[in-house]
C-alpha cells in the first residue's frame, strides 16, 4: 500500500513538473519571445563558468592542503621515498599547468561571451604558437620521463645476493608466506601438481633438500633496513601483492613467478610511535580482482629490527616438522638430513654426520 502511495506521489510530481514546463513554454510562445536570439541565458552561463572555476579551484586547493595528512600514507621504504618524491614533483608541474590552463580557459569563456555587433577574430593558425606548445610540453615531459626511468630501473634491477628471500603465495582468498628457513636460506622447489588438501598447500617438492627447513607463516615478518626480495606466485587466479606503506605492488600470476625487491626503513614500533597510534599495523592487500573475497585478502605485516627478526625466524617450526606424515615422501637417502634440517631430530654434530655419509 505504501509503495502504491509512493508511486502515485512520484507520478503526481512528474505530472506537475510536466504541466509547469508546458505552461511556461506556451506562455513564452504567446509572449512572442524569440528563442533564436542570444539573450540573458548566455550571460548567466558565462558567469556560472567563472563561479564554477573559482569555487572548484578554491575547494581543490583548500582540501588538498587542509586534509593532506588524511589522504597521504606514511612511507616506510627506501624506493618509496623516491617514488613519492617523483609523485609530488609531477604533482607540482601538473597542478601549475592545470591551474593556468583552467583559469585562462574559463576567463576566455567569460570574456569573449557573445556581444551584439562584435565580430570574432579570424585567427586560423600561428606556427610560432603551435611550435611553442608542442616543444615546451615535450621538454617538460622528457625531464619527467628520464627521472622516472632512472627510478624504475633502480627498483626493477636485480636484487643483491644476500637479500632476504621470502615467498608470498596468493590464493582465493588469503595470502600465505613461506620462508626459506634458517639453515639453508634457499626456498625449496615447488610444483602445483604436488599441492593436496591434507597439508601440502605449497606443493613442496620433498625430493629437494632445500625444502626441509622451509616454514610457513600467516603473518609477513620483515627485517628493517635489509634488502628484501619478495618472490610472488599464485595458485589459482591472478592476485596482486600490495604493501601500501612500502609502495610495493606486483601481480601474483599462476604459472609465472614474479618478484619485487625493496628495503623497509621503519619498524612497526617506530611507525606506531611516529603516528602516535599504538594499534597501527602494516598491511598487505590484494589489488587484482580475484573473486568474491577480493576485498578481504588481508595479511598483517610485522617489521622488526634485524635481531628480533632473526630470533623470530629461529623460533619457527619447519613445515616438515608440523606435517611429519610427509617424511615418507622424502627419499630414503635424505631422510636423516631432512629430520635434522626440519628440527625433528637434534643435530648430532659434524662428526656423526660424516660417519653416516
Amino acid at each position, binding site marked *: 500500500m505504501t509503495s502504491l502511495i509512493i508511486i502515485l506521489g512520484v507520478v503526481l510530481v512528474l505530472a506537475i513538473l510536466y504541466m509547469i514546463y508546458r505552461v511556461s513554454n506556451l506562455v513564452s510562445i504567446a509572449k512572442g519571445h524569440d528563442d533564436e536570439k542570444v539573450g540573458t541565458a548566455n550571460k548567466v552561463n558565462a558567469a556560472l563558468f567563472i563561479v564554477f572555476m573559482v569555487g572548484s579551484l578554491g575547494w581543490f586547493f583548500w582540501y588538498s592542503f587542509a586534509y593532506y595528512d588524511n589522504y597521504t600514507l606514511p612511507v616506510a621504504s627506501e624506493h618509496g621515498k623516491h617514488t613519492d618524491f617523483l609523485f609530488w614533483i609531477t604533482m607540482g608541474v601538473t597542478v601549475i599547468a592545470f591551474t593556468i590552463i583552467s583559469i585562462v580557459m574559463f576567463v576566455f569563456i567569460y570574456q569573449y561571451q*557573445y556581444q551584439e555587433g562584435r565580430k570574432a577574430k579570424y585567427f586560423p593558425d600561428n606556427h610560432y604558437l603551435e611550435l611553442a606548445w608542442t616543444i615546451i610540453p615535450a621538454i617538460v615531459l622528457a625531464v619527467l620521463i628520464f627521472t622516472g626511468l632512472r627510478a624504475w630501473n633502480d627498483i626493477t634491477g636485480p636484487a643483491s645476493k644476500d637479500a632476504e628471500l621470502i615467498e608470498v603465495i596468493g590464493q582465493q582468498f588469503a595470502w600465505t608466506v613461506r620462508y626459506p628457513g634458517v639453515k639453508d636460506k634457499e626456498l625449496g622447489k615447488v610444483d602445483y601438481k604436488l*599441492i593436496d588438501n591434507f597439508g601440502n598447500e605449497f606443493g613442496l617438492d620433498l625430493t629437494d633438500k632445500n625444502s626441509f627447513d622451509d616454514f610457513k607463516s600467516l603473518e609477513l615478518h620483515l627485517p628493517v633496513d635489509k634488502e628484501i626480495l619478495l618472490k610472488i606466485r599464485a595458485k589459482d587466479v591472478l592476485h596482486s601483492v600490495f604493501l601500501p606503506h612500502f609502495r610495493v605492488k606486483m601481480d601474483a600470476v599462476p604459472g609465472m613467478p614474479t618478484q619485487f625487491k625493496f628495503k623497509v626503513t621503519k619498524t612497526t614500533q617506530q611507525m606506531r610511535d611516529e603516528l602516535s597510534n599504538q594499534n597501527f599495523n602494516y598491511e598487505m592487500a590484494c589489488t587484482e580482482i580475484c573473486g568474491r573475497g577480493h576485498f578481504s585478502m588481508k595479511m598483517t605485516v610485522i617489521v622488526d629490527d634485524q635481531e628480533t627478526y632473526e630470533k623470530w625466524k629461529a623460533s619457527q617450526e619447519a613445515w616438515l616438522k608440523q606435517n611429519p606424515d610427509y617424511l615418507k615422501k622424502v627419499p630414503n637417502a635424505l631422510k636423516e638430513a631432512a629430520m635434522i634440517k626440519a628440527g625433528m631430530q637434534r643435530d648430532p654434530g659434524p662428526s656423526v654426520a660424516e660417519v653416516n655419509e
Partner: protein
Amino acid sequence: MATTDIHTHQDVHHHDEHDEHGHHETNFWRTYIFSEDHKIIAKQFLITGIFWALLGGILSVIFRLQLGFPEVSLEWLRPVLGEWITAEGKLDPEFYLALVTMHGTIMVFFVLTAGLSGTFSNFLIPLQVGARDMASGFMNMLSYWFFFLSSVTMFTSLFLETGPAGGGWTIYPPLSALPQAIKGSGLGMTLWLVAMALFIVSSLLGGINYITTVINLRTKGMSFTRLPLTIWAFFFTAIIGVLSFPVLFAAALLLIFDRSFGTSFYLSDIYIGGEALAHDGGSPILFQHLFWFLGHPEVYIVLLPALGLSSEIIATNSRKPIFGYKAMIGSMLFIAILSFIVWAHHMFVTGMNPFLGSIFMLLTLIIAVPSAVKIFNYVTTLWKGNIRFTPGMLFSIGLVSFFLTGGITGIFLGNSAIDIQLHDTYFVVAHFHLVMGSASFFGMMAGVYHWFPKMFGRMMDNKLGYVHFWLTFVGVYLVFFPMHYIGIAGFPRRYYSWTNFDAFSGFADLNMLVSVAAIITLAAQFIFLFNFFYSIFRGRIASANPWNATTLEWTTPRNPGHGNWPGEIPSVYRWPYDYSKPGAKEDYIPQHIPYSETPESNLPHENELIKLETSNGSGAIIVEGSKH
C-alpha cells in the same frame, strides 16, 4: 577511352537510382526497422545507446550505494535483484563485482563505442562529405543488427541465475576462464564472449563502411584538407577500430578455447577447488597483451569522435575558425598511431619484463604532447571569439575541461615508477572516468544537442539543456574528483568494502559524497531524456541551419529525405571553418559558396582560385593538390 565511357554511364545511372529512391514508397519495416538509410541507422544506434547508458548508469548507482552507504539496508531492491540481496539486506559481494564488470562493459563498448561512433559516424559522414548515403547501406544495416543481437545477448546475461560476467570488464583469465573461481565465469562469461564477438562484427562492418565512404564518396571539391574535423576524427577512429578489434576477437576466441575445449593459451599451474588442473604452459600475461592491444586504442576509439564533435561545435559557437586545423589533424593522426604502441602501460606491475615497462613508459608519455596541443588549440579557438552558450557548446566546454583534468593525471600513471603505488587504485578510476568516460560522454551529449535539429527537424529546449549541463558537469566533478584523494591514499579498485583494512578505512565522508553526487548526476539525465523525447514530437520547429554553421549537412532541408539532398549534391569550394572572415557580410560562409561569390572577404590566394572554379568545383581539387 571505352572504360571512361562506361564509368560515366554508371555514374549517371547511379544518380538516377538515388533520385528514384527519393520518391520511392517503402513500407514501415524497410523504413524504420531494417532501414539502409544512414540517418535512420544513426538514430537506431542513438536510441539503443541511450538505453544502455541509462542501464549502465543505474548499475553504477547500485554499487555506489554499497560503497557510499555500507550500513544501509538494500532490502528495497529485493523485488528487482532477488537473491542478489543477501539475507542481511546487503548486496552480494559477487554481484557487486558483476555490477562493476557490466557497468564497465556497457559504458565502454555499448554506449561510448556503438552509441557514440555508431550514431555520429553514421549520421554525419554522408551529410558532411556530401554523399547520398554510406558506401554500403546493406552492410550498415547489418552493422546495427549485429549490434542489436550483441545487445540482446549481453542483456540476457543479466538475468542468469549465476549472474553476468564478474571478472572485471578486462576479463583477465584465469578468473574469467574458470567457473570454479567466480560464478560469473559460468554461463554469464560465455554470453559475454558471444556478445562481444557479435559486437566486433558489428563494429568492423561499420568501420569499413565509414572508411570507404570518407575515401570514395566525397562530393566534388571536398578534398581531404576541406573535411570537417569531425570527419577526420571518425575516419581515424574507424581505422583504429578496424586494426584493433580483430585482436580482441582473437583474444576472446582463445579464451573460448581455454574455457570450453581444454586448450592452455592463458592457463598454467592452477590449483583450484581442491584439484590441480591439467592446463600447462599458458600465460595469463598473453591475454593481457592481446586485450590491451585493443584496449588502449579503444580509449581513442571512444575519445576521438568526441573530440571531433566538440571541435566542430566549439568553432561554430565561438564564431571562429578552429585554431590550427592542420595541427588538429596532425595531433589526431599522431595519437592514432601512438595508441597502438602504448598498450603495456596498463601492465607495469603484472610481472612483465621491466625493460618493456621502460619502453612503454617512454611511448606513453609522448602521447601527452599531441593531447596538450589539442587542449591549447581549443583554448585559442575560444580566444577573441563571440561565444554563444548553446547546450551543445556547454557540453563541449565540459569535454575540454574533463580532457584537461583527466588527461593530466595520465602523466602520473604513465610513469611506471609512480604507477607502482597508483596502479589499480581509485586514482586510476578517477583518471579514466574523467578523460575517457566523462569527456566522451559529454562529446556525445554535445553532439546530440547540436545535431538534434538535423536529426529530428526540431529544437531541443535550451533551458532544460542548461539545467542538464550544470547538474551533470558539477555532478561528474563531484563524483570523480574526490576519487583522486581516495586513490592517493591507496584505496584499491573493485573492493566491495574497505573496512577490513586499517589503511583504507577512512574516507567514509568522501565516499558518501561521491555516491550522493552519482545519484544526482543520474537523476539529472532524466531531464535530458524528457527533453529528448518530448522535443522529437513537440519541440520547436528548427530552421534548416539553426546554428549558422558552415558544413554541408546544414544545406539539406529541415528533414533530409532518403538521398539527403533533393537536387544535386552541392559542390564544395572552401574549408569548413570560414567563420567571422574579415570583410564578409555574415559571420559565416558555408562550404558550398564559391570564392567568386565572396570577393569582399577573399584572401589573396583565394582570389587566385576563382578562375579555377568551375560549376562543379572539380578544378579546385587540382589546385589544392598541386599546391602542397
